[in-house]
């Protein structure tokens, strides 16, 4: 169920109507159920996987907050990270590493068949894994308080507008919006609708049409003309931008209609003046994630 499909449109109209007539607590339950249905529409089998992540981080975080023993806190954090990374590693990267390792071994003259497991990628797995991991780390460092309500926390992780392509919102920003009633207004509805339509335009009109040009060259065999390659490279740059930024805009728009403030994920990245600037404008939530949970822990440990 992609955002730019008829089934999603019907799905959202039903969800939005229910959302409008219900109070906060029931709105959250409808959103949680809707998100589960949305995810199950891709593959219901992976729904259990996402709930393993949700439950691990929910209970680890409460235990971290409740414990006075630094050692126990640390081991709980390690447990949570280990569970999350194992799931991500197994489902997303196992075949990749296996295939590359085999190639490397074969380079040295051995003949080994790659050992791959036959699984399909659970959709959105990196997005929700990063989200649940950042939550537990933030609870551990004392940045945020753990969520007390399991259903609210589950909704934070599986919230359907952000499930497929982010942005990777932090618990500190999104959980309070889930826990307390959202204010709805006609203005927010207009703004949200604008974002949705602008996102759809970027995705369907620009990205999907550029894809036709791009695939013409990327999908054919050499020789190529120089001009063709030049056009294709530029077309591809705008295709991936409009595809991803369009999706992010739709996510923000869907959130806005329901009274949620979803962070900006793309800030005119092609106007960046250097690579550092670029990564502060492209998929901002991911760059920030790596800055806060990978770069800082390493750089701060190595300081001096």
């Amino acid at each position, binding site marked *: 169920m992609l955002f730019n499909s008829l089934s999603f449109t019907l799905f959202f109209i039903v969800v939005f109507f229910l959302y409008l007539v219900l109070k906060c607590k029931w709105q959250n339950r409808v959103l949680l159920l809707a998100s589960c249905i949305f995810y199950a529409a891709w593959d219901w089998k992976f729904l259990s996987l996402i709930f393993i992540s949700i439950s691990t981080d929910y209970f680890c975080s409460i235990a971290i907050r409740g414990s006075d023993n630094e050692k126990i806190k640390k081991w709980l954090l390690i447990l949570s990270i280990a569970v999350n990374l194992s799931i991500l590693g197994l489902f997303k990267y196992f075949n990749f590493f296996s295939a590359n390792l085999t190639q490397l071994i074969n380079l040295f003259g051995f003949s080994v068949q790659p050992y791959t497991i036959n699984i399909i990628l659970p959709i959105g797995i990196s997005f929700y894994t990063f989200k649940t991991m950042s939550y537990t780390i933030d609870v*551990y460092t*004392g*940045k945020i308080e753990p969520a007390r309500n399991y259903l609210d926390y589950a909704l934070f992780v599986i919230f359907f507008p952000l499930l497929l392509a982010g942005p990777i919102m932090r618990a500190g920003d999104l959980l309070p919006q889930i826990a307390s009633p959202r204010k709805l207004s006609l203005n927010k509805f207009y703004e949200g609708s604008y974002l949705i339509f602008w996102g759809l335009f970027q995705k369907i009109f620009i990205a999907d049409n550029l894809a036709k040009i791009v695939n013409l060259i990327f999908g054919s065999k050499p020789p190529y003309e120089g001009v063709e390659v030049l056009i294709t490279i530029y077309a591809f740059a705008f295709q991936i931008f409009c595809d991803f930024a369009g999706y992010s805009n739709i996510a923000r728009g869907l959130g806005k209609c329901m009274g949620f403030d979803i962070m900006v994920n793309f800030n005119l990245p092609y106007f960046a003046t250097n690579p550092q600037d670029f990564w502060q404008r492209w998929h901002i939530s991911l760059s920030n994630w790596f800055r806060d949970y990978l*770069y800082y822990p390493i750089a*701060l440990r190595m*300081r001096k």
Partner: protein
Amino acid sequence: MEVRDKLNRIFQEVFKDSVIQIKPETTANNIDGWDSFSHITLIVAIETRFNIKFTQKELLGFRNVGDLIKSIESKIAP
């Protein structure tokens, strides 16, 4: 207040801007040039000047300048 003044001077030196006025609610978003590189420089400067040492967990838990000031005060208190 003393900690805040001293910290403010460190901010002005690290970010080479003599008009910076830090507040408890100041974050990296409010100060030009406070990026992931200068953040490390800033932390090292604070540790040297106050002669204190932050733990890894404290450093990762700061939400704003207010958290930073609280942590410094707890360390220099007799």
